[in-house]
């Protein structure tokens, strides 16, 4: 089961709907025991960073512990930004610090918010983008972006007058600045890939399949 963290911010319903649509066992929850038992966690977010941090409260430590223990974690939009160390949106706020980097305003010269469908150049070794080709459009809606300084993180970029990190992966921790749940069929494929990471087919099943194929 995938648990979408319910922490009183907008957008939670659409994330659940999207996972439900692709046939995933998904639950919206803030129950610590369900979070601990989940195969994977999703941290959504339509909120200002500071509000999201306050709303997350004590769940932050729980999520951090789960992610550091190897549980797949996907942050979306502000949830993606929360994975980093710090944000300067409406004052300075500490994030979860799972990935090194800061959340900073989009530089002058472009319209802000960065709103709409932008082309993401996908690094082919990023698990979220498996089977999606080299580049696809995804839906963005944000005014701040993540300045990633973590050498261990893989990054996919989009062009917004500069190279804007559109998605990151550091081990079992994933983040998308865009909204996969609002990016049509391509976005649903990204969520399917995350579901596959959370619930890989068991080795036994795989063996059975292979055997069946050989026969």
């Amino acid at each position, binding site marked *: 089961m995938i648990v979408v963290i319910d922490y009183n911010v907008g957008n*939670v319903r659409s994330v659940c*709907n999207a996972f439900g649509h692709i046939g995933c066992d998904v639950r919206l929850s803030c129950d610590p025991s369900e979070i601990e038992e989940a195969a994977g966690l999703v941290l959504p977010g339509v909120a200002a960073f500071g509000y999201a941090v306050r709303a997350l409260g004590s769940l932050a430590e729980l999520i951090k512990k789960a992610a550091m223990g190897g549980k797949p974690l996907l942050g979306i939009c*502000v949830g993606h930004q929360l994975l980093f160390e710090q944000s300067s949106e409406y004052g300075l706020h500490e994030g979860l610090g799972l990935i090194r980097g800061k959340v900073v305003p989009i530089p002058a010269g472009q319209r802000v*918010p960065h709103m709409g469908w932008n082309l993401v150049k996908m690094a082919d070794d990023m698990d979220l983008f498996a089977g999606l080709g080299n580049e696809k459009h995804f*839906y963005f*809606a944000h005014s701040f972006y993540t300045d990633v300084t973590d050498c261990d993180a893989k990054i996919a970029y989009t062009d*917004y007058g500069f190279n804007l990190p559109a998605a990151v992966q550091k081990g079992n921790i994933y983040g998308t600045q865009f909204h996969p749940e609002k990016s049509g069929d391509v976005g649903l494929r990204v969520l399917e890939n995350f579901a596959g990471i959370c619930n890989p087919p068991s080795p036994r099943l795989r063996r059975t399949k292979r055997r069946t194929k050989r026969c």
Partner: protein
Amino acid sequence: MLTKRIIPCLDVKDGRVVKGVHFLNLRDAGDPVELGARYSDEGADELVFLDITATIRSRKTIVELVEKVAEKVFIPFTVGGGVRMVEQIDELLRCGAEKVSVNTAAVENPGLLTEAARRFGNQCIVLAIDARRSKRQGGKWQVCVKAGTEPTDIDVVEWAVKAEKLGAGEILLTSMNADGTRRGYDIELTRAVADAVNIPVIASGGAGTLEHLYDAIVDGRADAVLIASITHFGKYTIKQIKQYLKDRGIPMNL
């Protein structure tokens, strides 16, 4: 590169789409959920649902509608009409809307924009402006409220600039003079606002041909165009629109 957006607008009254939409093969041409899903499948970049009754009763209907649309449609959609309080914005976002538009309430209480932006981020707060050419002040536009029925003394460009500072993340700019004429968007108005603010501007009102959309984007500098009758009545498909604009050099998600 960020693409320009094509946004069909569905006017909803008592939970049904009005203005008539003439798609083929629809079981029910007035069902907002089915129409939204159809536009999404056709390649629309976003959708706008406007509750044009906006009564206390219809508010409940629109929340139910948002829930149903969010179960079927996996592209962003904005909901507006009669939104007056932060709690209403919260409810609509939680049910699955990506953005909420405010109009009259923001004019009466500009602090609403700030309060909402601080809580939800400005990217989900759309300011809808109904603009009418002022007869008294030549060449200027005045803000109209209450579904365009009440003109104010507020200048459209000044209001747009102020609203951006207060927390609006996008402007849905409707020319009341052009709306329904199918003679093209008010390019002068669109450009005046698009040049004055740094947030995205959606041009609305007057689209009749594909060239009108091109003009709004290139000459009006709009980031997105709202369309209604041009596709509702089957004159063009979203794909035809996008192909035309792409062929003329405009970045499209096609």
